[in-house]
Each structure stands twice: as C-alpha cells, then as structure tokens.
C-alpha cells in the first residue's frame, strides 16, 4: 500500500510564480513576498494527492518535491 505523500518547497528555487497556490490552495501558502511554503509539515491529507502532483508538475522553477513516506 502506498504511503502518505509529503510536499516541500525549496526556498532557494521558489520565485513566487504562485502556480501551486492557485492549483492546490489547501497545500500551499504564500508569504508577504508571494513566495510559496508548504502548509504545516507538508503532509498531504488523504484525497489531495492529485493536487500535490499537479502543483509539482506545474512549478516553473521545479521547486516542489513530492515524496512518499
């Protein structure tokens, strides 16, 4: 059985395109400069796995990693 997904935004790579926030607002938040951060510890709640992958595959800076725990 597949484990839980975890997301992480690499702060050195994120440039604030905000695509992740638009595609998966439940998983990402933006700081005052518009740069993205994973919400909480990045654990993806059940049912939001597709959104996590969608955010990952649309980040222009390849700043988002999704890992299976």
């Amino acid at each position: 059985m597949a484990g839980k997904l975890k997301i992480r935004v690499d702060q050195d790579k994120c440039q604030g395109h905000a695509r992740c926030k638009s595609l998966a607002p439940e998983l990402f938040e933006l700081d005052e400069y518009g740069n993205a951060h994973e919400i909480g510890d990045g654990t993806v709640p059940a049912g939001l796995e597709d959104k996590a992958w969608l955010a990952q595959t649309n980040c222009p800076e390849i700043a988002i990693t999704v890992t299976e725990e």
Partner: protein
Amino acid sequence: MSDTESFLPEHPPVADWVNDFDHTDPRWTENPFPIWDELRAASPVVHTERFLGCYMPTTYEAVRAIANDTEHFSSRRVIVRDIRPEQTAKAPPITSDPPEHKPAKQLLLPPFTPDAMKKLEPRVRAICNELIDEFIADGKCDAAARYTKHIPVRAIAHMLGIPEKDGDLFINWIHEILELGIKSQETLMKAATEMDTYFAGHIEHRKTHPTDDLISTMMNARTKDGQPLSDEHVRGSLRLLLIAGIDTTWSAIGASLWHLAKTPVDRERLVREPSLMPLAVEELLRAYSPVTMAREVMKETTISGCPVKPGNMVLLSFPAANRDPKMFPDADKVVLDRKENRHAAFGLGIHRCVGSNLARMEMTVALEEWLKRIPDFRLDPAGKVTWSEGTVRGPRQLPVLFGKTA
C-alpha cells in the same frame, strides 16, 4: 515612401533565418511559430550579425539555463536594439543583477501578491464592463483598440495613483520605447525623458501631499540600512511598472481573444465550462507568451555548447521556449486543460515578472467579462489583424464581429 518608413532605418528582409534571424522582420511579427521551429530544428542556439551581433537560444532548456545563470548573463540590457548606448535608463529590478537585485525586487513584491490583486479585482471588472458598454451595441469592434488596450493601463494607473485618463500618454511612450526605440535612439531618449519628467512631478507632489498609492509606497520604502530610495530609483521602478505592466498584458488578453475568435470549439468550451478558466489562462499564456527579454554576456561561457563572449547580446525568447515540443507535447496546439504546464511566460529565475499575479488577474477578468457579454464572436473578414513587433508581441488591431455566423 511614407514618412514613417523613412523615419526608421529599415532592416533588409531575412533570406536565411538560421544564420541571419531578425525578430523585427514583418514575417516574424506576423507568424513567428514556423520560424522558431526552423531555428530549433537547426540548432539549440542561433546567431545573427544584426543588432551588432546577437545569439538566440531556441530550446526551453537553454532559455532556463541562461535565466538561472546571473553570473555570466547580466540584465543591465534587457532589450536587443540596433544601438547599444553606454548609459541606458535603469529600471530596477528588471535591469538589476545580484546583489542589488533582491532588495530592489523585495520592495515591489508585497503590493503584487495574489491577495493584493484580489482587492483590485472589482475595479478591473468594472473597467472591463465600462469598455464593453461603449461598443457592444455596434455588433462589432476592434477588440485591441477598444478593449484590451485600455484594461492594463487603467489598472496600473489605479494602483500607482495617477489619473486613468493619462493612459494614452503612457501607451504612446511605451510604443516609442519598446517598438520604435529598437531602431531609433532619439525616439527612445525622448520618450524616456518625457516619462521621467511626468513621474518627477508626481513624486514632488507627494512629498507635500502623501497618498496611499504605489508611488507613495515606493517613496516611503526604506533600504536595509534605513535609507529612503533615491528619486532616481523610484522613477526607474515606476518607469518599469508602466512599461512592463501595460502592453504585455494588453498583448496577452488580445492574443487570447484572437485565439477564441478563430477557434469556436475552445470559445464554446470556455463559455460552457467557466471553471476551466485558470488552466486555460495558463495555456493561452504558454501558447501566446508576449514577452521576449535579453541578456548581455559578462564572462566567457557557452550556451548549449556554443561559446559566447563578454559584450555579446542574447535574445531570451520565452515565447519560443514555450513552443519547444521537447518540453510541451503538442506544443503547437492550444490544449485548454493542459495538465502539465511549466510555461515560462513570466520568465524564469530571479527575474520572474513581479506583476505576474496582476497580469493573470487582468487576463482572467477580461476574458470572463467579455465571454459573459459577448459569448459569440469571430474575426471580421473585412478587417486585418496586426501585431506589435519586437520585445512584446500581441494584436494591435483585432477587428471582430459579434454574434453567431448567419
């Protein structure tokens, strides 16, 4: 020969795109896509002797590599011109390199977050409807001249706190700087000086009459050491916001309407499925990215194996990168619900467009309001669509007829 033709030094027509490309050639302006395919098939990087010598990467991969390499590639010149004046008017942060870039950009980021744009959205919706009110009864319009042209300029004027009615002034300066200025230093300098004088007046006025608009925000900003920005820095950033914020989004909205006018299946789908709009906006941004930038080589390096030297200019075509089939399957097709779309319409790396959230909001609202009130429209066969040349590409005449075909 008309006055306009004699005013600009003409470039000879291109006979060999691969070895002699010219992004101001009328055929490139009209339909660049097959040209980019030809260049990409020939080489990941091509060169022209025009513009005092210029390279152009043709692949997404090469464009990304250059955008991320601020050590070898400087942004101090971001437009490829016939001339290369020693002193170019600075417009921080777009013309800044590290380490000056980050603090200059950070000052501008908070007013342009998605949340900040939500506050501006009702005004933009109203602007769109005010414009549509003016022509909807005519059954037709030039959508570029009557609609798309006015939305970004009024929105940015609203943010800056300058009169929306000054829009025509700004549009004229931008035309002189971004289009005519490629070939005429005199026109470029004249427009830049007029713009500076205009903003200097607004800055002076706010020194005694503070406001809560973006100009005052810039004037009140402090550097890390607590120093206010120089008037020159403020004027430079204002110049940037105006230049970068107007004909770019005007072009993106116009190209989207152009696509929808000639593609009934996509238009009908967007009317039927309005929830598709966020993905559709990204796809239209990818397919018809308006903005091409440039870099100047600072240290010897290579682009996809091709050696380049200090002083060489590099045309950084995000629009061509976004058509690279290696990165985007069916790159030449508009797929409204494209799922995987790392498009570079707003650039890549540290120079990601500071106004990208504004542009997206304006595009979304402009398309939504248009489709609500004019769900059926098509290109007017009696008219001609024309496109701007050079750094920003989009329709400047877009004659459309409303209603279903008889």
